[in-house]
């Protein structure tokens, strides 16, 4: 199956080349696209040197817009499956390959890589979040589960695999502000099969998390509003293509 792996990257010059090499090694059959989200460093050059196709957004637009670019490319170029992972080295490509297996087997339309191997806990063997993060994780878990009536553990995971139905939907409707959570809600509302697969994640190789406590609080607040509004959005069943 023709597969596209895309990597949204914003100022990740230190890690992007390694991630590309890892993806090449772990998912040899897939095409690669790096979406440079208006980086001010040499992310785009490093990615090109590493042999990846690079789509450079002219200015920073946020993760949602970058991911949507990838879905749009996958849809237009006729890829049957696509997957994306973060450019900071947190996501081992071998795990992404496991997500893709679910798509190839048509067991789900959208597969999320969850860092929590034990679904009941907000931490795992290789992931120990700070208090503010843990609160946010718990809040989002609770409300997303409430909204979708489906159990999600890693609501903000940036490691996903998808088929054409999801490409068609996300390339048209993808919130630029709150991509991860709203997209899950949207997918479930539209009747797509969303599945979570426990994966192993690593410490970030480069860059730093954008979350400070104040930002976390704002992030949570905004997320809740987005979820609430999302519950009242009209459904577009039939708009997705097979």
């Amino acid at each position, binding site marked *: 199956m023709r597969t596209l792996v895309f990597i949204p990257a914003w100022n990740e010059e230190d890690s992007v080349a390694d991630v590309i090499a890892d993806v090449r090694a772990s998912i040899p059959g897939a095409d690669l696209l790096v979406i440079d989200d208006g980086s001010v460093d040499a992310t785009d050059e490093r990615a090109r040197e590493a*042999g990846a196709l690079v789509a450079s*957004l002219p200015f920073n637009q946020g993760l949602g817009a970058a991911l949507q670019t990838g879905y749009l490319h996958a849809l237009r170029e006729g890829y049957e499956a696509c997957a994306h992972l973060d450019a900071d080295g947190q996501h081992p490509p071998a795990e992404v390959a496991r997500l893709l297996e679910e798509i190839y087997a048509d067991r789900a339309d959208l597969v999320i890589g969850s860092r929590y191997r034990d679904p009941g806990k907000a931490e795992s063997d290789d992931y120990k979040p700070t208090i503010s993060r843990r609160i946010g994780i718990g809040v989002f878990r609770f409300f997303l589960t409430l909204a979708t009536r489906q159990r999600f553990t890693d609501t903000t995971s940036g490691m996903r695999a998808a088929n054409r139905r999801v490409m068609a939907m996300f390339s048209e409707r993808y919130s630029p502000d709150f991509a991860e959570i709203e997209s899950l809600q949207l997918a479930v509302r539209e009747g797509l099969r969303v599945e979570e697969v426990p994966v192993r994640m690593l410490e970030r190789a480069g860059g730093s998390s954008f979350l400070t406590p104040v930002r976390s609080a704002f992030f949570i607040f905004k997320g809740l509003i987005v979820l609430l509004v999302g519950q009242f959005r009209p459904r577009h069943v039939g708009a997705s293509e097979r």
Partner: protein
Amino acid sequence: MSVLVLAASQSPKVHLTSQTRIIAAILALAFMALVLELIRRNRLQERFSVVWFVAGLGMLIGAAFPGLLSLVADAMGVRDTNVALFSIVLLFLLGLALNFSVTMSRQATQITRLAQEQALEKAREQASSGENGSEAKRERLQS
């Protein structure tokens, strides 16, 4: 705006001196002239100007026929004409601000899509020119 200021200084019954009415009318006309000038200099698109013209006309009418305001206030069931005027103007501005947010959101979406199209176009160029583009790689894989 001038009507608003004038009316605020009045007692509930509208009594405008001819002097204040003239000032109000001049301000209203100046405002409409400003809108016209902005259109003429391509600083304002016609489709955004309609609402401002209506506002200017409203100001002019208010200056010409101050009695109208008490009629409107009566129709609203408000004893104080000032309160009626403030409510109307406030609601008008609120609606306008919301309208701008809607317009901005639509344009933000359009700008994002434009940026995405441009980025993908550049990627396609890279694919067709470079040896390590995805097309070449795909062919290697299939053969």
